[in-house]
């Protein structure tokens, strides 16, 4: 489906947007870098550079040298912001405690998220990082951007901020690290009015929705993840920027059960593309895999000789529900038993493809370990059709769910913790979904569904008082 923006998009004239020339950006030599000394003692940090992995200290030193050589009028906050950051970090390593103070009333006008206040508690020693606010920039769907656009963002941040960024934060946003309060509104103006780029979410908001690469590049995508991400980002602008939730709330969109953005582990509401008909099989291609004419796994893992491809050992025996077998040289699948592990499709992509009647599975309640430990999300809606403008999902799922969480959720309680506290049966009641046997792990353990009289045909005659007369609670 062709991209249809919700409002007119102007063409960005990158030549006019760029702030720095190539000479200014490449203003030091490798020889100068070797001899460069940060103005503070950072000996403990420099140890990190000796490890086998790329170190952020090495990157920070490059940034520090670059800023030291920029002309005075080419940056609006102090040139030694990176050097001060490194100096303070060294002290934190030594003291074993942070010297950052988080939070505050800084923000941009009308927005309750997107800016996170941060201050140094050693401002006299490190004045260039007295303020070190973070800004979150809402990444384009699937993180597709033009390199000129990225360069323009980097220029803006070099000019009005520290030049240090995270590409990307765990929610997906482009994260600008470190600026002063007076730069926040000008950055926000340039981002929104010139680059047509919104801030992301932070605080008790809907966080920046994030999606996999989807139909743009992937044949397995059962839903248009980019379109859904774009639509819900626009539709729920108020929830993204004006906090009224008990805590953070994340949407993530995966096009297929391979779950490339790990929505199942990280989102309060995970959308995972799926199908409800049958896996499409090309039996000729199955034979070609078995005969060694097509490399399994799309040719991946070629660095070693694994021997001839063995479909029984490498596909059929590894099916978690044992729903595949060979019959007269043909691959057979009992589709109703398939749990969408994707292994067979991943190994033989030219022989097996997802079905054609596609939609979305919706899962709830994943989160990282803050209070109750990490939780994976719970498969609650196995299949739902998923077509723009997604009104069935907005009206029947998202909004009733938010109403419940806003009503019942405690401050700083994630959706997964509310489900745990009030029970899966309450979640099902809120969403008006009948319980399924697959939701019950085993009787008398959580999640357990208690039937109500109105759920049982004919109700029941037993009086609880009679029962209690014979059985103490």
């Amino acid at each position, binding site marked *: 489906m062709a991209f249809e923006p919700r409002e007119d998009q102007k063409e960005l004239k990158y030549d006019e947007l760029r702030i720095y020339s190539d000479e200014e950006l490449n203003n030091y030599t490798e020889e100068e870098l070797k001899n460069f000394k940060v103005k503070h003692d950072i000996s403990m940090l420099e140890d990190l550079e000796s490890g086998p992995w790329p170190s952020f200290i090495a990157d920070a030193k490059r940034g520090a040298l670059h800023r030291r050589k920029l002309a005075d009028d080419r940056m609006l906050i102090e040139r030694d912001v990176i050097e001060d950051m490194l100096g303070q970090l060294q002290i934190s390593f030594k003291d074993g405690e942070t010297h950052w103070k988080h939070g505050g*009333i800084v923000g941009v006008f009308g*927005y309750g998220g997107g800016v*996170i206040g941060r201050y140094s508690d050693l401002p006299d020693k490190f004045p260039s990082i007295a303020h070190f606010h973070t800004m979150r920039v809402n990444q384009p769907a699937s993180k597709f951007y033009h390199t000129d656009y990225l360069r323009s963002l980097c220029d803006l941040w070099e000019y009005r901020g520290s030049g240090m960024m995270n590409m990307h934060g765990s929610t997906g946003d482009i994260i600008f690290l470190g600026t002063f309060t007076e730069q926040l509104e000008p950055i926000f103006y340039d981002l929104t009015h010139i680059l047509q780029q919104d801030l992301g979410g932070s605080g008790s908001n809907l966080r920046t929705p994030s999606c996999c690469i989807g139909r743009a590049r992937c044949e397995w995508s059962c839903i248009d993840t980019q379109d859904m991400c774009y639509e819900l980002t626009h539709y729920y602008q108020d929830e993204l920027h004006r906090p009224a939730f008990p805590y953070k709330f994340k949407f993530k969109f995966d096009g297929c059960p391979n779950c490339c953005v790990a929505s199942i582990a990280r989102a309060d509401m995970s959308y995972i593309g799926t199908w409800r008909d049958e896996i499409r099989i090309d039996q000729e291609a199955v034979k070609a895999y078995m005969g060694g004419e097509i490399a399994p796994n799309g040719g991946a893992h070629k660095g070693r000789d694994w021997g001839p491809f063995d479909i029984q050992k490498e596909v059929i025996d590894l099916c978690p529900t044992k729903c595949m077998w060979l019959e007269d040289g043909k691959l057979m699948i009992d589709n109703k038993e398939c749990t969408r592990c994707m292994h067979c499709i991943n190994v033989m992509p030219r022989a097996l493809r997802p079905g054609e009647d596609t939609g979305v599975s919706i899962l709830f309640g994943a989160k990282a370990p803050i209070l109750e430990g990490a939780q994976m999300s719970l498969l609650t809606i196995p299949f739902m059709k998923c077509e723009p403008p997604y009104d069935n999902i907005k009206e029947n799922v998202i909004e009733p769910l938010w109403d419940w969480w806003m009503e019942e959720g405690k401050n700083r309680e994630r959706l997964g913790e509310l489900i745990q506290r009030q029970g899966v049966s309450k979640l099902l009641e809120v969403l008006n979904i009948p319980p399924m046997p697959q939701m019950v792990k085993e009787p008398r353990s959580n999640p357990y569904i208690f039937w109500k009289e109105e759920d049982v045909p004919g109700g029941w005659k037993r009086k609880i008082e009679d029962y209690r007369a014979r059985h103490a609670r």
Partner: protein
Amino acid sequence: MEDIKKAILDFAENSKKTKFYFSDMEKAVHKVLPDAKTRMIKKAATALINEEKLIYFSTGSSTMYGLKGRGQTEDH
């Protein structure tokens, strides 16, 4: 809407804590206006932010509201 805004401001001026969660503000409004809908309370709070009577206070992970000029209002 105006009565919800008034209830919010009364709470913000008199609450023990100078920063409070949305749900605390919602409970305070419900004491005075039991039928007020959550979405209306949010709209009223947003209007008060835009009128620069309320402020957001964010820790990065969660967000609170406060009355402008009460408690911590400077940068630090």
